[in-house]
């Protein structure tokens, strides 16, 4: 072996994890990202349902024009810099909302949901409509309870994209109090800030090399996904299956 680092771990040691959990910036980013993901999923789901439900109705006048208006944005966009300047002009730079509002609807997820809604039998709504229920009531009381599995799938897609995404925070966030976990991780891993972390925990100074701390940070931020993913895998797969049917 070249310099004493072997293929297999020599001994089990959790000092590096102590460093990560002791680091208040890392823990702060964790809480910030959790809050961000919860708010993001709540709002995106609301907006996606509100878009997909009306557009799933074949008899809606102007439906094709609205669909064209929406789908066009999947294939043409202003790109990175006009998007950045837009956020800047709206006064959203360095704000929580710059990480929420630009992604309120994923057109792809919306179309998945629309495809699902249009596969539900119409008779369900008809009887409620005869009873005089409004469309909002029908949506909340009848359609959504029937769509739980689909809603879970789409919510997971949104949650994972928010948890893992960092291109927007790279562009819009300078204030280190609003670093997401991924952005913080990028500072540590790519821009080599792990030495400062080691210095924060006195007992770790002697024994740790930056590489170990980096690895601990990677595991730390992968943990939530590793824990929930195996249980929810079937929902993710369902999303892809629905997507493969042309709607």
């Amino acid at each position, binding site marked *: *072996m*070249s*310099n004493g*680092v*072997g*293929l297999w771990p020599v001994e089990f040691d959790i000092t590096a994890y102590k460093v990560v959990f002791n680091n208040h910036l890392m823990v702060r980013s964790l809480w910030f990202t959790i809050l961000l993901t919860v708010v993001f999923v709540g709002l995106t789901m609301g*907006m996606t349902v*509100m*878009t997909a439900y*009306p*557009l799933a109705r074949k008899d*809606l*006048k102007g439906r094709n024009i609205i669909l064209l*208006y*929406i*789908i066009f*944005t999947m*294939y*043409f*966009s*202003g*790109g*990175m*810099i*006009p998007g950045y*300047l*837009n956020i800047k002009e*709206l006064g959203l730079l360095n704000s929580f909302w710059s990480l929420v*509002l630009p992604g309120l*609807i994923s057109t792809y997820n919306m179309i998945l949901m629309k495809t699902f809604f249009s596969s539900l039998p119409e008779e369900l709504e008809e009887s409620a409509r005869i009873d005089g229920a*409004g*469309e*909002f009531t029908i949506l909340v009381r009848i359609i959504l309870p029937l769509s739980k599995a689909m809603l879970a799938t789409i919510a997971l897609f949104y949650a994972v994209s928010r948890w*893992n*995404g*960092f*291109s927007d925070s*790279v*562009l819009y966030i300078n204030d280190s109090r609003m670093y997401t976990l*991924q952005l913080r991780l*990028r500072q540590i*891993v*790519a821009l080599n800030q792990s030495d400062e972390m080691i210095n924060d925990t006195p007992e770790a100074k002697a024994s740790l090399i930056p*590489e170990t701390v*980096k*690895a601990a940070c*990677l595991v730390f*931020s*992968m943990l939530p*996904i*590793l824990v929930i*993913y*195996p249980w929810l*895998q079937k929902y*993710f*797969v369902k999303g*892809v*299956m629905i997507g*493969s049917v*042309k709607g």
Partner: protein
Amino acid sequence: MSDSADKRYNASQRKVYSRRSKTLLYFSGHWQFYLMLVPPIIYYAVFHYKPMTGLVIAFKDYNMFKGTWASPWSGLTTFRYIFKNPDFYRAIKNTLVLNVLNLILGFPMPILLALFLNELKTGVIKKITQTILYLPHFISWVIIGGMAYQIFSMTTGIVNNALNAVFGITVPFLTNPGWWVFTYFIISVWHSIGWSAIIYMSAITSIDQEIYEAAKVDGSTRFHTMFFITLPNIKNTIVIMLILQVGTMATIGFEQPLSLQNSAVMSTADVISTFVYRVGTQNAKYSVATGVGMFQSIINFILVVGTNTISNRLTGQGIW
């Protein structure tokens, strides 16, 4: 007024009236749908269409303090600058090289994987295999980048330590421009192979089981069945996926190359998206970066529309 003319007048009035009342009836039943669509329409206007109008700064000498509209027009100066810039051609070349590699070598991989996974009959093993294969899709590029630098490190990485122990060599996987392309490709395949296989597996499950029974009776071997029965039966899905991938030839997302590149390999690792990011945010050349992005958007749009038209002609299926 004559009698018949009077009748005609009445009939046309009735028609107008009934059309109007139909419209009224329609809206009294449907206004809530339109109300629901108001926030999404505003969202798309503010966060998608408004940035498109921002493309005009490619034709302006953008001044941060004056804003988009007050900045002076500069005609095609920006594009003249872009087309003279060697880094622009380098970014295009790198984007194409990585994408073509991914199309030729990467595209068949999930198909093969789906064929083999289909042969795994036992529930538990198949399930565990699938779980492990789909997982990389859910790991962020920051983490993958970080892991890659640890695993492929020249001094402490597990791969180079193994190579060193067995063959006495070390390979600059992420620090040599040529090797970087190789490593990028391997990581891309690892990241997407399982997830991309799902669509082929769902196509396989819809194949008529009687064909397989007939093949069995005729004494077809497993490999023969895989390549001469399963594969031809998912041909349509393969064609569509192939066409869709050709449509993305001009694009590489921002997060993957940014997480894997470093200053030593920019000659092969700088793609259009990272080039735009660097020019735009780090050098603050907003007009140039917008121009490059616009060039990419247009090429991309032409490719997507073109490939979709071809797909519709050939297979009767497309994205729209």
